[in-house]
């Protein structure tokens, strides 16, 4: 069984889609290929990988309640390619959005179902994940925790010859358990869908989220954006202002009535 995983995030690195893709690939097994879809230059290479594949898993962020435009462009080409080459793949989706409710991915799931119907492919279902950006941050926090554990172990060893300081290990275990808890819903549904991808069966649409209360999530999201905006300078450039449209700057760009 061959499965092609496509990371559809336009970001070059550190995207939530890559995080969920790596987990879904791990839980699917078999022969896998991983591709990155960012620009039209990627289309031909990815489409060629679909020959001989049994399933394709699209991992993508939700943009304005739907499929990002650069992915729509690819889907149009994929529809024609699959029809021309009589490909009959199973199509699955791992969607993530920045809001906490995974259910906000529903319109995107429906669009992919219609795409499959038009392309003669089998819609296998998907997992819609809420709080994708924050879940992506948990993987960095996990790596940081490992770093701290190693540092504490080295310090303890040089100080009193003990390479396994109990306090550091307990602290690491507590933090790791907390991070795991945040990811529990995602892990459950990706493991479940991995089984369906392996068997080539219909997974249905399932929605999950980061495992924290919504009002706490919003608080952390606001703090996150304040910090990022502080470092990037937006906080001092009319962060929340009603910016006017400056037509003079767009004289050669064709929008506007005049």
């Amino acid at each position, binding site marked *: 069984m061959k499965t092609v995983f496509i990371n559809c*995030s*336009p*970001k070059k690195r550190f*995207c939530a889609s890559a995080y969920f893709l790596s987990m879904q690939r791990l839980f699917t097994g078999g022969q896998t290929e991983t591709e990155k879809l960012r620009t039209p230059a990627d289309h031909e290479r990815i489409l060629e990988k679909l020959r001989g594949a049994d399933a394709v898993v699209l991992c993508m*962020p939700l*943009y*304005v*309640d*739907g*499929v*990002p*435009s*650069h992915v*729509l*462009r690819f*889907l*149009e080409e994929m529809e024609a390619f699959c029809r021309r080459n009589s490909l009959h793949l199973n199509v699955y989706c791992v969607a993530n959005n920045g*809001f*906490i*409710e995974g259910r*906000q991915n*529903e*319109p995107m799931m*429906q*669009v*992919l*179902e*219609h*795409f499959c*119907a*038009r392309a003669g492919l089998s819609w296998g279902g998907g997992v819609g994940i809420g709080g994708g950006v924050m879940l992506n941050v948990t993987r960095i926090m996990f790596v940081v925790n490992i770093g701290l554990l190693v540092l504490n172990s080295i310090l303890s060893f040089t100080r009193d010859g003990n390479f396994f300081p109990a306090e550091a290990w307990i602290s690491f275990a507590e933090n790791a358990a907390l991070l795991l808890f945040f990811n529990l819903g995602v892990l459950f549904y990706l493991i479940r869908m991995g089984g369906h991808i392996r068997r080539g069966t219909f997974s249905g649409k399932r929605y999950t989220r980061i495992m924290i209360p*919504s009002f706490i*999530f*919003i608080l952390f*999201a*606001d703090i996150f*954006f304040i910090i*990022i*905006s502080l470092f*990037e*300078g*937006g906080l001092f*450039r*009319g*962060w*929340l*202002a*009603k*910016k*006017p*449209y*400056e037509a003079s*700057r*767009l004289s050669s*760009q*064709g*929008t*506007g*009535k005049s």
Partner: protein
Amino acid sequence: MKVIIHDLGSPCTEKVREKYDHVIEADGKYAPCQGCFGCWTKHPAECFMKDRLQQVCRIIGQADELVIVTKNLYGAYSTDIKNVLDRSIGTSTPFSTYRGRQMHHTLRYGKHDLWKVIVWGDITEEEKATFRLMAERNAINDGFQRSEVGFAADPAELEAMI
């Protein structure tokens, strides 16, 4: 202010120019969103890409009535229309709130009136249902009080609807 986004080419732009305050012709001659959030965190309500859509959120953000004329693509906006919408998230701020009992971003330009979608091209009943859901979701997301979706069966009906 009335704003129209359409994917019907320049003849349509000329026809509707007098009826709308802003006409955005979705011809695909612009880059897709890179997901950097720079229009929230670095240069508010402005995209780092210096093309026709650099300030598109400032136009859409000030629309009382937004009319979107789009070809059907799998029950959603055509690629060129969706590209415009993807590049317009600066209509909101990075702060979060609840709207329609779900999490959304606060509105930079306040509330709007009507999010109207006119769909043309071949479409199934299932795709129509998705379009209605999509427009409803978009309206809540962008702070529009109501949404409407119409389906044009032929060019004459489409022209009458616009």
